[in-house]
């Protein structure tokens, strides 16, 4: 074994308790970092998936301006055949057309303003969770029947059950008065209050008749093979659009900009916390290494007087630190991995968290996502800062005068 390495290793264990305490600080931070980063990635992934699965999809085709203004007349003309063309081009069934209108829905005793969607019953289940979340009754099954499915909260507010009738009052695409009577065939419960309270779905054909859409609709929803497939889908769909039409292809980030930003806001506050932790560990290391150098001043003076270059001593100190850092990293990653894996199978719950989670369509229990990145990102930064912290004790040896050093009491 290399002599410098051996020296460094032995120096490290001159004060075992001190070395273990300093390593302990690293291990503690590393466990915390591995756990928190894994938890965040698990949460973000779920947040995006759940938010998009329920309704939005990965990519949508809309009329220019519809996303922000959501006006009835900003339509995608001949929407069913465009959706078909996209299905063929992508060789995928996960494409569905929708229309949307705001109406006053009245039951026998109650009236509420809601958003009613015209959907293609045979394709909607491919792009949205709602058809699978029917709690009573059934989902729509024909493209033109006078049927409706409503959210569970809405059903309760309207005091209706499956089999009752609802009257829809609103305006058609030309601004004229539009009305229809539909029978409730199903009630869905997504668990997201806003959706269960405000949304109802009717067949697209019926929607187009009721609101005088003349074959048009408002959005084509496309679900791809995970987020990575989004750019490809976007460009393929773009190439299908007729050049003269006022249509845009929007991805999930454009459709729900809040999602990415909520993640960014959460990330930046977490990074502040991680950074503070890392800084505190560096202080610990700086303290230990400075002490260990200072108490060896005489010894260093002697070896320097014997001709050893200060730069070699500096490297020795850095090597000691690196060894210590390595122990901290290895133990931290192992312990962090074990702790986090336990939560990966058992989940983590925190009182009150279920309600906050529901706001982002998340389950009440969080499952961290352990991967190479979450396992090593935090510990590597800690290791890096450990080395940085040792730079001052290592470099100050360069200005050490051997004679003065040997005289230190």
């Amino acid at each position, binding site marked *: 074994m290399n002599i410098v390495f051996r020296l460094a290793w032995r120096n490290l264990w001159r*004060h075992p*308790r*001190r070395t273990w*305490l*300093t390593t*302990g*600080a690293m291990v503690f*931070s590393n466990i915390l970092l591995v756990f928190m980063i894994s938890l965040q990635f698990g949460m973000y992934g779920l947040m995006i998936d759940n938010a998009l699965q329920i309704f939005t999809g990965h990519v949508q085709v809309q009329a220019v301006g519809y996303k922000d*203004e*959501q*006006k009835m*007349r900003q339509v995608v003309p001949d929407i069913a055949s465009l959706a078909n063309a996209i299905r063929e081009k992508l060789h995928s069934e996960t494409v569905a057309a929708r229309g949307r*209108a*705001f*109406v*006053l829905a009245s039951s*026998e*005793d*109650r*009236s*509420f*303003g809601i958003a009613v969607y015209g959907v293609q019953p045979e394709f909607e289940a491919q792009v949205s969770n709602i058809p699978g979340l029917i709690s009573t009754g059934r989902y729509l099954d024909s493209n033109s029947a006078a049927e409706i499915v409503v959210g569970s909260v809405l059903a*309760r*507010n309207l005091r209706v059950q499956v089999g009752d009738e609802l009257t829809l*009052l*609103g*305006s058609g695409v030309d*601004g004229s008065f539009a009305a229809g009577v539909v029978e409730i065939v199903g009630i869905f419960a997504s668990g997201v209050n806003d959706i269960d309270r*405000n949304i109802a779905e009717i067949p697209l054909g019926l929607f187009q008749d009721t609101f005088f859409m003349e074959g048009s609709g408002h959005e084509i929803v496309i679900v791809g093979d995970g987020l990575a497939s989004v750019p490809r889908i976007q460009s393929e769909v773009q190439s299908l659009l007729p050049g003269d039409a006022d249509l845009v292809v929007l991805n999930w980030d454009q459709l729900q*900009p*809040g*999602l*990415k*930003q*909520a993640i*960014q*806001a959460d990330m930046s*506050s977490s990074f*502040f*916390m991680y950074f*503070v*932790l890392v*800084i*505190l560990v560096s*202080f*610990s290391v*700086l*303290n*230990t290494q*400075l*002490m260990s150098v*200072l108490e060896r001043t005489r010894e260093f003076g002697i070896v320097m007087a014997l001709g050893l270059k200060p730069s070699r001593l500096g490297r020795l100190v850095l090597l000691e630190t690196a060894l210590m850092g390595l122990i901290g990293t290895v133990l931290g990653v192992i312990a962090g991995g074990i702790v986090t894996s336990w939560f990966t199978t058992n989940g983590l719950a*925190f*009182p*009150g*968290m279920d*309600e*906050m989670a529901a*706001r*982002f369509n998340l389950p009440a229990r969080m499952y961290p996502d352990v991967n190479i990145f979450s396992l090593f990102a935090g510990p590597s930064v800690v290791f890096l800062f450990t080395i940085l912290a040792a730079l001052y004790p290592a470099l100050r040896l360069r200005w050490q005068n051997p004679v003065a050093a040997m005289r230190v009491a």
Partner: protein
Amino acid sequence: MRLTPVLFRLAWRNLWRNHRRTIIMLGAVGVGVWAMIFMTALTRGMVDQMVIDSIGVLPGHVQMHHPDFQDDPSISNRIPFQEAELQERFAGAGFKAWASRVRVPAVISSERESRGVTLLGVDPDAERDISFFDYDAVDGRYLTDASDQGIVIGKKLAETLETGIGKRVVLMSQDPDNDIADRGFRVIGLYAATTKSVEESYAYIGKSTAQQMLNIGDETTEVVFLGDDYRDIEGTYKAVSSVVDASVSVLRWHEIDTYLGTMMRVMDGFVLIWVVVIFMALSFGLVNTLVMAVFERVREIGLMLALGMKPGSILGQILIESMLLLTLGLAAGNALAWATVVPLEDGIDISIVAEGMEMWGASSMLYPKLYASDMILATGVVLLLGFLASLAPAWRASRYKPVEAITKV
């Protein structure tokens, strides 16, 4: 007893024998405490702003409704008191401010578009004392009295409806017999709110006008009461509860907006966890410093014991040294936190992630809030846990055998 000043002096001098180590440790404690308080101030600021925004839209720290209104916010669930009866019960009861309102779901239509909104029939004279609503910030004008014939809507809603000041809109809701109640209004004012969803959701008309339109005489659906501070509403809650019976339900704001209530509780928990985690990261360094300090002084401690100093005094001396170190670090950290938070109290603009913050329910300005209670919490936790962490090294020091300690090389 007269030993105590001596111990203090010894501890203080010992602290500065190795000034480098002490300064590094002070730096670590200072940064740690700063991070504890700074992060807490940001969190508090965010939650406070959320609460203020939310209460600002629908002011009232305590609200009174029909028992079924929360579940079924329909015109059928009115407060079973006439206006005169309300006056009689509440006018002399010494509330800071109170007002009754009509609040029902409705559909608003322009000649182009329709949307669902929450319709608020308010008496501007009574609300003036309650509302955080900035009447002067309204484009056009706000309602002048309870029988004002105009309507005030949010800017975002006006954009969607393609309407504006002076134009007409139609409101549709239901009366107690479930007949459609509708009426045309002229838009007289547009308000801006901190979040777009608020601007889209609430439309204000005169209370008497609303009662007329909905055909409910002079009955209302909610009465709101304002206390001095949203954190301390129990007094108001009890005062209201004591003058009404079970025919109405009285709720605190955090029971109405449970998300906010939960958010506040979760944040309280988060603050404590954060403080403890930072302390644990610090504690390794603290214990390390003490272990080193004791180690360097083994012979001297042995001598003191041999000269007749009680082990308890050795223990006290080390503990005092540790507490002095922590107190200095705490002072530095608190001062640093104060110095960094106060200049930021005018607000930090985080509008790059505005839509994300809106998902969390927060606005795009962050106003850090320094609470004395949080500073005391951080200080208390550090002193208490610091004391506990110092016990072990101090105990060991006091248990040395004098002879062995003196002869230790």
